[in-house]
């Protein structure tokens, strides 16, 4: 009772009449209003901002830093990029270069990058939730948000949203895009870059239409079971086929094979070459620079050679007797699209090289393979398996149509919603972890999945994940002015007889011309402006390397005089740059000019650091040897090269010396005087 009367009296005091009630409510309202700003005192960002002020308080430049500091929620809003970032509410010192020594986050300044932080915002590169105002929601994916921050390991992927070109700063992204092509991922998966360029495969899976000419059913069986057992560097992944499936596929592949147009040296009786013949074969293999493209394991188990063509360590276990000879005689008879050039070998050379390669065998590889004659049922089952496994996505097979988009399109895989992903138990629930898992062990996501098992190193997988994470939906909605185009391969075709010859010799496998071709050998787009006719004619007959330290060299194709003349004339007439007039009259040099050029060469420009003019004295071997340069290049080219090397060959490492006209003239005179004594004697 006493309580009740006390309550009544309090009520009387506060709300006794309308004036009292109004006053009380007014005070309550004021208190409530005061709570709203006070609430911010408990926010994470407020705590961090207080911490920042404490941190800079004792520093020498505290006044400047404090002046630049703005409290409260900070926001970067870039409507055209869809960026709303509040990261700088906590990361307050991102632009304070003087705080380089600060190690505690969120107060570290941002490391140097080529972009302005305010023009691009944070989430463009780091992803995460820009609008969030708590640490947890901004950085990690919680219930309401989809996209966590991207781990530093894959950070280069964000560059790939705009950059289609190969940036120097993003080796991992470049490697990943290369691998998508090199390992044939894009045969099955379609991947388009944000500018619409479709990634094209750069591997060269052989057609299987004449496979019975090349190899046996037993080899196909063993290869299908485990390609890496035959060659550790094999591109073909392991489809983890069981014995019966491998048996039936091999039966079908043999059954669909038809004889190829292979001609040339008929297989001789299977005489095993003796030791001297093997030695001679190894020499012929070396002299023909087969190792520029093909690798063979040496006695120490190390691979020696390039990776443009398949590894040949066990080729003798694969190829039928005589097939290698026929193939080397003219590979295009078997596979018109092959990257292997048509060497003009004579029968003796073919026998030597063929014998040498046939001796590269491995008796264990097929030791346990015994196959019965295939039944019609097995062949039919094999055909069904070939269809189911999408073999024709990569290989040409008779009676099987190349499937369109056999596997899911990966163009926007980098922003696939987590809600749509089924994770394997124990896997981290993030997109990078999912993609990595898919590449590492695709079948762990379900035994019925078709993606085969690749043999990739950790860094290769990292590179692939980086390249795939660059395929975001955001990349396609960005303004096109931000996109930096790549250099997709052109479809340039040289014309006429020379064009046919270049196709036969597969110049494009190593050389690039007008945006098409490989990067193993020099770009020849302007070759016609640089070299002299006599030199080029002789070079085709007997290519000598100009760079003594190069391991991969131009092979000798045994071209005829007439073929050499056709190629030379075509190159000289067509592959020219407008900035060099090779036929311009060049004044015959005075001895004084030559002497001045010599001094410039050896002292002012110290060219001997990289080039050799006098083999007795000079040792530099980064650039080409210049002992014969006067009979190789023409004066106008040398002059222009000295003035601006990158204008003639993009990306050449010869530094631009900003050479004066007079210096360039004198050096040209000196270099043109280097005709090479031996050359004259011949």
């Amino acid at each position, binding site marked *: 009772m006493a309580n009740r009367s006390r309550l009544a009296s309090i009520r009387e005091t506060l709300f006794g009449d309308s004036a009292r009630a109004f006053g009380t409510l007014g005070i309550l309202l004021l208190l409530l209003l005061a709570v709203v700003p006070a609430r911010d005192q408990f926010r994470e960002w407020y705590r961090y901002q207080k911490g920042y002020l404490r941190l800079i308080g*004792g*520093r*020498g*430049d505290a006044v400047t830093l404090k002046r630049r500091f703005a409290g409260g929620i900070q926001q970067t809003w870039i409507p055209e990029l869809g960026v709303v970032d509040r990261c700088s509410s906590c990361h307050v010192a991102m632009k304070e*270069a*003087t*705080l*380089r*020594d*600060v*190690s*505690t986050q969120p107060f*570290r300044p941002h*490391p*140097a*990058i*080529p972009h302005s932080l305010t023009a691009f915002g944070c989430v463009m590169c780091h992803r995460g939730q820009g609008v969030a105002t708590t640490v947890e929601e901004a950085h990690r994916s919680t219930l309401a948000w989809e996209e966590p921050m991207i*781990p*530093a*390991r*894959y*950070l280069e992927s964000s560059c790939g949203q705009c950059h289609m070109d190969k940036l*120097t*700063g993003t*080796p*991992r992204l470049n490697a990943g895009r290369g691998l998508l092509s090199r390992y044939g991922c894009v045969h099955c998966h379609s991947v388009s870059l944000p500018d619409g360029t479709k990634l094209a495969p750069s591997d060269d899976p052989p057609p299987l239409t004449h496979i019975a000419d090349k190899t046996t059913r037993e080899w196909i069986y063993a290869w299908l079971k485990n390609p890496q057992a035959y060659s550790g560097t094999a591109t073909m992944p392991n489809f983890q086929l069981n014995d019966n499936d491998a048996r039936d596929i091999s039966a079908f592949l043999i059954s669909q094979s038809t004889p190829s147009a292979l001609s040339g040296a008929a297989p001789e009786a299977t005489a095993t070459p003796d030791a001297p013949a093997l030695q001679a074969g190894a020499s012929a293999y070396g002299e023909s620079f087969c190792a520029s493209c093909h690798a063979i394991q040496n006695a120490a188990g190390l691979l020696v050679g390039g990776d443009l063509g398949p590894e040949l360590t066990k080729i003798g276990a694969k190829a039928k007797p005589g097939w290698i000879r026929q193939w080397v005689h003219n590979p295009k008879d078997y596979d018109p699209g092959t990257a292997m050039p048509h060497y003009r070998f004579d029968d003796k050379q073919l026998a030597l090289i063929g014998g040498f390669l046939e001796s590269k065998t491995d008796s264990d590889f097929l030791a346990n393979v015994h196959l019965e004659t295939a039944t019609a049922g097995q062949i039919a089952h094999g055909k069904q398996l070939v269809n189911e496994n999408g073999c024709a996505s990569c290989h040409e097979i008779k009676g099987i149509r190349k499937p369109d988009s056999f596997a899911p399109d990966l163009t926007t895989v980098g922003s696939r919603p987590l809600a749509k992903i089924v994770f394997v138990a124990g896997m981290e629930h993030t997109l990078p972890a999912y993609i990595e898992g898919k590449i590492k062990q695709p079948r762990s996501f379900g035994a019925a999945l078709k993606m085969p098992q690749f043999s990739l190193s*950790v*860094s290769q997988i*990292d590179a692939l994940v980086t390249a795939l994470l660059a395929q975001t939906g955001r990349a396609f909605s960005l303004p096109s002015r931000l996109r930096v185009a790549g250099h997709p391969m052109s479809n340039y075709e040289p014309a006429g007889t020379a064009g046919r010859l270049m196709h036969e010799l597969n110049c494009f496998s190593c050389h690039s011309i007008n945006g098409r071709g490989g990067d193993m050998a020099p770009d020849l787009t302007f070759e016609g402006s640089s070299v002299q006719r006599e030199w080029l004619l002789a070079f085709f007959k007997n290519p000598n390397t100009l760079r003594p*330290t190069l*391991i991969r060299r131009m092979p000798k194709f045994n071209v005829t005089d007439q073929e050499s003349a056709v190629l030379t004339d075509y190159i000289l007439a067509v592959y020219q740059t407008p900035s060099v007039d090779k036929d311009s009259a060049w004044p015959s040099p005075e001895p004084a000019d030559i002497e001045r050029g010599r001094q410039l060469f050896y*002292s*002012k*420009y*110290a060219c*001997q*650091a*990289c080039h050799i003019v006098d083999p007795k004295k000079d*040792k*530099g*071997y*980064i650039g080409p040897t210049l002992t014969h340069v006067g009979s190789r290049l023409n004066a106008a080219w040398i002059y222009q090269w000295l003035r601006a090397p*990158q204008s003639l060959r993009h990306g050449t*490492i010869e*530094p*631009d*010396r*900003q050479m004066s006209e007079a210096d360039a003239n004198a050096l040209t005179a000196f270099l043109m005087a280097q005709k090479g004594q031996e050359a004259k004697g011949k």
Partner: protein
Amino acid sequence: MRTAAMGVVALSLVLANCSRPPAPLIPKAPSATPAAIVEVSGGKQLATIGTPLEQPIVVQVNDAHGTPVSGASVWFRAPNGAVMQPAWGITGSDGQFTTSLTIGSIAGRYKVSAATEGASGKSVEVRIDELALGFEENQGKQWSDLYCSRCHDPESSAERVSNFDNLNAKPHAFSDGAFLNKISDEDLLALIQHGGPALNKSAEMPPYGRTLSKSDIGAVLAYIRAVADPPFEPKETVFAQRQ
């Protein structure tokens, strides 16, 4: 300069964040009392931020006579953000223990320590340095691999024969901190931009001012500073000390 500072930053970060106390181990008694722990391999590696080191880190526990001790417990401490896998374990019969390290997301020098329990419960430890390259240093490394290392790196690789021996003035390796740390940023930039003669050095060092952009040369400098051994410590740290 900025990068070099970052190295120092990471260093202090390491010292400030000595993480994870050693996990309790229940090992068998070691074969002898450990007296020393030494690095076998895996130190001074370069890696991009966020990536694993290419080679594992291998340490060995020795007793007072220098004989390997098997069954000794070893624990690693790495700076925040770096992940050791595994972070502790027991040495094998050869007295060695192997672990792999994934670098964190901050560029700079990562000081890893490996420790074991020595006589009378006192721990003995060894410091192992690893280098993490950020975007700028990594870009510098790419340029360096293309333009600089042909002469500045005396070692040849399978793909590249070093030109070091062919030069009259022997170039300094970029890791030669004892020499390069003494040259100021401005001088090094001028040297790369205008060539050796800019600093009265050999003309065999050509100018790159028209071949590489200013920011590219800055990246190369950042790389040189990052890989310096002994570490580069910038002089102008006026604002870096608390008063």
